[in-house]
């Protein structure tokens, strides 16, 4: 009997203790929350859907429509032109500029489709798919991996009247591999493949010029964020075919093409828009032209100024006012 009494008292005491332990309601919630396994998916590897010229692993958020204006001015300084470079206001007032206007939409968190006007009667449609997302937690993935494909069509007035639509198409396929190392530093590696359905004057053995249907290149890019809203970006891309001379499809004359593109940029996030200002050794607006038919030689100091403005709109309202 004594033992029972003792036990009862003990139980009562324990019961009291239990009740007391539950007094810290918030502490319990916090404990419970921190015990839950958490998957930390890395966000904001880059500020924009482009590093500078090349695509970044980022895509417009789900249900969001993004409008992008990208502008490449003329060369800042051209050798031999002397003071007229100043009259051209370092390329800003040169009258040669390529504009890219694009709209893209993400129906899901992992897929993005878009279309663009890339200047000189050229159009592009593209798709971007997120295959891997950098994350830590129960599952660790060190990188973000995207697939990007563009179809490009040249609608300009051609040299030959028997031009088929098919002959005017070219494609770009890229794998975007990026890692956000910390809050500030992100790097990206981008192998690319450009395919032209048709290239005129292919007989380079007799003509001495190069013209290939398939152009390979590899690019690296990165950004360093120095405040939460401002970042420096860089990019280098090298065409692996290394062609320097190709024939223009329009005129048949020889044009010099350069395989390297170097770009340096500055990202500025104002809260609603993302501005990107850059100098780049290309004046082309389309990724395909940049990677396979770049006419600016950085060794001669052919750099041009450019900017990109992004604005995204929440088209599909995901937030409900009540559960």
């Amino acid at each position, binding site marked *: 009997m004594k033992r*029972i009494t003792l*036990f*009862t008292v003990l*139980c*009562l005491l*324990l*019961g*009291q203790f*239990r*009740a007391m332990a*539950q*007094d810290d*309601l*918030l502490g*319990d*919630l*916090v404990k*419970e*929350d921190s015990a839950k396994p958490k998957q930390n998916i890395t*966000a*904001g590897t880059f500020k924009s859907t482009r590093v500078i010229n090349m695509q970044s692993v980022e895509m*417009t*958020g*789900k*249900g*969001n429509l993004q409008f992008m204006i990208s502008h490449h001015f003329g060369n800042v300084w051209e050798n031999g032109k002397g003071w007229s470079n100043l009259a051209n206001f370092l390329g800003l007032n040169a009258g040669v500029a390529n504009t890219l206007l694009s709209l893209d939409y993400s129906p899901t968190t992992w897929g993005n489709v878009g279309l663009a006007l890339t200047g000189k009667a050229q159009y592009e449609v593209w798709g971007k798919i997120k295959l891997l997302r950098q994350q830590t937690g129960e599952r660790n993935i060190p990188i973000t991996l995207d697939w990007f494909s563009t179809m490009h069509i040249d609608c300009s007035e051609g040299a030959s009247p028997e031009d088929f639509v098919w002959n005017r198409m070219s494609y770009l396929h890229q794998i975007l591999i990026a890692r956000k190392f910390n*809050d500030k530093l992100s790097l990206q590696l981008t192998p690319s493949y450009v395919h032209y359905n048709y290239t005129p004057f292919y007989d380079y053995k007799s003509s001495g010029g190069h013209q290939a249907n398939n152009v390979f290149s590899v690019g690296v890019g990165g950004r360093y964020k120095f405040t*939460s*809203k401002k970042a420096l970006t860089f990019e280098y891309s090298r065409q692996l075919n290394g062609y320097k001379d190709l024939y223009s499809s329009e005129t048949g004359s020889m044009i010099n093409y350069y395989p390297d593109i170097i770009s340096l940029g500055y990202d500025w*996030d*104002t*809260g*609603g828009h*993302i501005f990107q200002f850059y100098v780049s050794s290309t004046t082309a607006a389309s990724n395909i032209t940049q990677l396979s038919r770049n006419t600016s030689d950085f060794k001669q100091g052919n750099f041009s100024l450019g900017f990109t403005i992004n604005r*995204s*709109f*929440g088209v*599909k*309202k*995901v*937030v*409900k*006012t*009540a*559960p």
Partner: protein
Amino acid sequence: MKHILLLTLSIVLGVSLLNAQTYKTRDGYLTFNPNKDQSHKDYAAASKEATAVLKVETSEVALLVPMKTFHFNNALLEEHFNENYLHTDKIPNASYKGKLIGFTKDMLEKDGTYNFTSEGQITLHGVTQAFKSPVKLEVKNKVATFYCDFPIQADKFNIDIPAVVKPKLADQTPISATIKFQL
């Protein structure tokens, strides 16, 4: 002998459980729209993963919301919310701890709508402030739903909003919470 022991044990445990009657929920819903023009829903956000407890005897309540569970209509704003305004990597949670003043146990037993106030402390962005707000309770079919609409002033919680964005936002962000308990 053994029976008595078991009986005592069950009584004691029963009593202690009854003593500490608490209700818990994992799908508390919080939503806010920081826009000055409330009909404009572009900046609106919501979380449906707030956890809450209600301790009936003492009318104590606590609520915890992981900030990363807030999702926005505009994905860019969600990034800003996490990275620039609330620094959710460093300060992952917001919480509330307080009492329901005027709440009684019988309210949960009878269907109806009740009004009282809640007083306590709210912690957001690492800053704790005193809090007082009216609360509406609706009990229906064994479900108790607490509704609470309250304003939050960003600068009171050290949330830095850039001058460019400020004119577009309401001075007091209205937040509405809907917390459902299964009785």
